[in-house]
C-alpha cells in the first residue's frame, strides 16, 4: 500500500517536472515535416540535428544528420544531448531507448491535412513557442480557407494525382488514394479525387484502371531532389487517348518537394494545385 502511494507520488512528480521543463532548447527532429514546422515557428535556432531526408529550409544543410525512420543513429542522437527528440510515433524501439536514456521525445503521427496545423500547435506548446506556433497554424488555416472559398463556385474536375511512374512509359503508376494529406489538398484545391473510393494513401494503378476512371485532369507531382524529368515526358499519356484529361490536354507536371512534406508549405502547395485546376479563377 505504502509502495503504491509512493509510486503514485513519484509519477505525479515526474509528470509535473515534464510540464515544468516544457521548454526545449536542444531539439533533434528526424522528420522533414516537423523540422520545417520548427523553423517556420521561429524555433529553428534550437534545432541541433535533423534527419537524413530533411532538405528545407536551406539552413538544415549545415546541421548534423542522425538517420531517419528506418535507421536512427541512437549513438549520435544521445551524444548531442538533446532535451527533445521528435520521432515517428511508430519508432517503438527508439522510444524505449530514449526512455531508458531519459531523453524526452515528441511522437509524430502522419495523417490528413487538419492534423498538420494541429501538430504545429501542439509542437509549439511543447517547445515553448506557443504564441508563434498558434499564429502560424492560424495563418495556414486562413490561407487554406481562402483557397476553398475561391474555388467553391467552380465545377470540380475529376482529378488523378500521380506521384510516381516509370519515365517514358505508363508502367508502375502510383497515385494518391482517397485518404491522406495529398487527397485532402486536392479536395481543398477544388478537385474531385478520381480515386476517392480507395481507402488507402497510395494506389498502384494499371492502365486499365486509368481508362476506367477517365479523369478530367491528371497532375503529376515530381519532388525528388535532382529529378530532371522533362515535361515532354507527359507524352507517355498519349497512349490512352480516350481519357478526357489526355484528349483535352489537361495533363500537368508540378515540381516541388512541398507536395510530399506535410508541413507549413502545405498552403502554398495547395494553391499551386488550385491554380492548375482552376486557371479561370486565378487569372481574373
Amino acid at each position, binding site marked *: 500500500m505504502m509502495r503504491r502511494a509512493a509510486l503514485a507520488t513519484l509519477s505525479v512528480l515526474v509528470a509535473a517536472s515534464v510540464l515544468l521543463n516544457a521548454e526545449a532548447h536542444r531539439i533533434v527532429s528526424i522528420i522533414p515535416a516537423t523540422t520545417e514546422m520548427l523553423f517556420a515557428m521561429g524555433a529553428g535556432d534550437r534545432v541541433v540535428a535533423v534527419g537524413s531526408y530533411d532538405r528545407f529550409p536551406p539552413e538544415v544543410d549545415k546541421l548534423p544528420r542522425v538517420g531517419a525512420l528506418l535507421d536512427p543513429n541512437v549513438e549520435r542522437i544521445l551524444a548531442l544531448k538533446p532535451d527533445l527528440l521528435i520521432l515517428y510515433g511508430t519508432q517503438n524501439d527508439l522510444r524505449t531507448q530514449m526512455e531508458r536514456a531519459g531523453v524526452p521525445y515528441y511522437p509524430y503521427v502522419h495523417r490528413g491535412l487538419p492534423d498538420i496545423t494541429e501538430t504545429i500547435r501542439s509542437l509549439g506548446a511543447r517547445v515553448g513557442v506557443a504564441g508563434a506556433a498558434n499564429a502560424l497554424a492560424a495563418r495556414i488555416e486562413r490561407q487554406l480557407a481562402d483557397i476553398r472559398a475561391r474555388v467553391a463556385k467552380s465545377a470540380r474536375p475529376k482529378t488523378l494525382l500521380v506521384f510516381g511512374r516509370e519515365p*517514358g512509359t*505508363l508502367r508502375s503508376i502510383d497515385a494518391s488514394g482517397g485518404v491522406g494529406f495529398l487527397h485532402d489538398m486536392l479536395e481543398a484545391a477544388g478537385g474531385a479525387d478520381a480515386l476517392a473510393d480507395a481507402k488507402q494513401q497510395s494506389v498502384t494503378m494499371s492502365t486499365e484502371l486509368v*481508362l476506367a476512371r477517365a479523369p478530367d485532369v491528371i497532375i503529376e507531382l515530381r519532388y525528388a531532389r535532382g529529378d530532371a524529368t522533362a515535361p515532354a515526358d507527359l507524352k507517355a499519356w498519349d497512349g490512352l487517348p480516350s481519357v478526357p484529361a489526355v484528349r483535352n490536354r489537361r495533363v500537368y507536371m508540378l515540381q516541388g518537394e512541398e507536395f510530399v512534406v506535410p508541413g507549413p508549405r502545405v498552403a502554398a502547395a495547395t494553391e499551386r494545385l488550385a491554380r492548375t485546376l482552376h486557371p479561370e479563377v486565378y487569372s481574373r
Partner: protein
Amino acid sequence: MRAPTDLRRRIVLTIAGFGALTAAVCLVAPLVGSTSISLPRAFDRTIPFADNVDAQVFFVARLPRVLAALLVGGSFAVAGVVFQAFLRNPLASPDTLGVSTGATLGAVIVITFHIDTAVLGVSAVPVASFAGSAGALGVVYLLSIARRRGTSSTVLLLAGVALSAFLGAVSRLVQVIGDYTDVFRSMRWMMGSLDVGSYTDIAIPLLPMTIALAAIATLPRVLDLVSLGDPAAEARGVDVRRAERIALVSASLLTGSAVSLGGPIPFVGIIVPHLVRLLVGADHRVVLPAAALFGGSFLVVCDLVARTAFGPAGMPVGAVTALIGGPFFLWLLFRRFR
C-alpha cells in the same frame, strides 16, 4: 531413328494438350478485367480508336499484358528446367546463379540515381536491368569455363548463391543512399509488373528470348543424359562441358530478358518445372515444350488473379505467384522428404 514413334506421339500430344490450354487461357484472359467492356464495340472499326474506350482497354491495357505474361512465364519455366537439370538440384531456379539479382541491381541503380529518363520511347529501367543480368551472366560464363578444370556442379551452385547474395547486398547498399521514395519505387519494381502498356516493350526482349530458346531446343537429349550424371553422359559421347556452357548461358539470357520485361517474378521458375515433370514425366523432349507452354499460361492466370481479385487497384503479380507458389512448393518438399 532417335525418337521412336510412341515418343513422337507423346511429344505431339503434349504440345497439343498444353498448346490448347495456353490458347484457351490467352483467349479468355483479355476478356476479363476490373472493368466490363463490350467486345463488339472494342472491335468496331467504325469508331475512331482515340474515342473507343473499350478498344483501348482491350488493346492497350489487357492484350500486351497477357502477351508479356506468356513470354515471361514461359521463359522462367524453361530456364528453371535447364538449371535444375544441369545443376542436378531440384531447388535450382532461374535466379540460382544470380542473373535476376544482377538485373535487380541494374534497375535499382537507375531508379535511385534518377537516370531513368526515357531513351527513344523506351524506359531505361528494363535496359539497365538487362545490362545487370548480362553482367551476372558474364560471371556465370567464367564459372562454366572453370568447370572444365573439374569443378563440381555443387561448387557452381554455391558460387551462384554467393554471387546472388553479393549482388543483393550491393542493391541494398544503393537503396540506402537513395531517397525513401526511390526505395519505394525499387520495392515496387521488385514485386514485378506485367502492365507494359505498349507492344514495343514486348518486342525488344523477344529477340534475345528467341535466340536463347533456339539454343535450348538443341539440348533436350543432353539434358536427359546429364540428369543421370556427367559420367553417364560422357559415356554416350556427349561433350558435357560444351553443352553446359550453351545451356547455362542461354538459360541466363532467357532469365535476363524475362526479368527486364516483367521484373523478378518469383516461383514460376521453380514450381512449373516440377509441376510439368509430375504431369508428363522426366523426358526433356516433352518437358521443355510443356514447361514453356504451361509456364506461360500459369503466369497469365496469376496475372489475371492479380488484376481482378483484389479490388480495382489490383495486386503485384509477384505477390500472387508466391501466394500460389509458396504453399505448393512446401507441399512438394514435404512429399519428397516424408
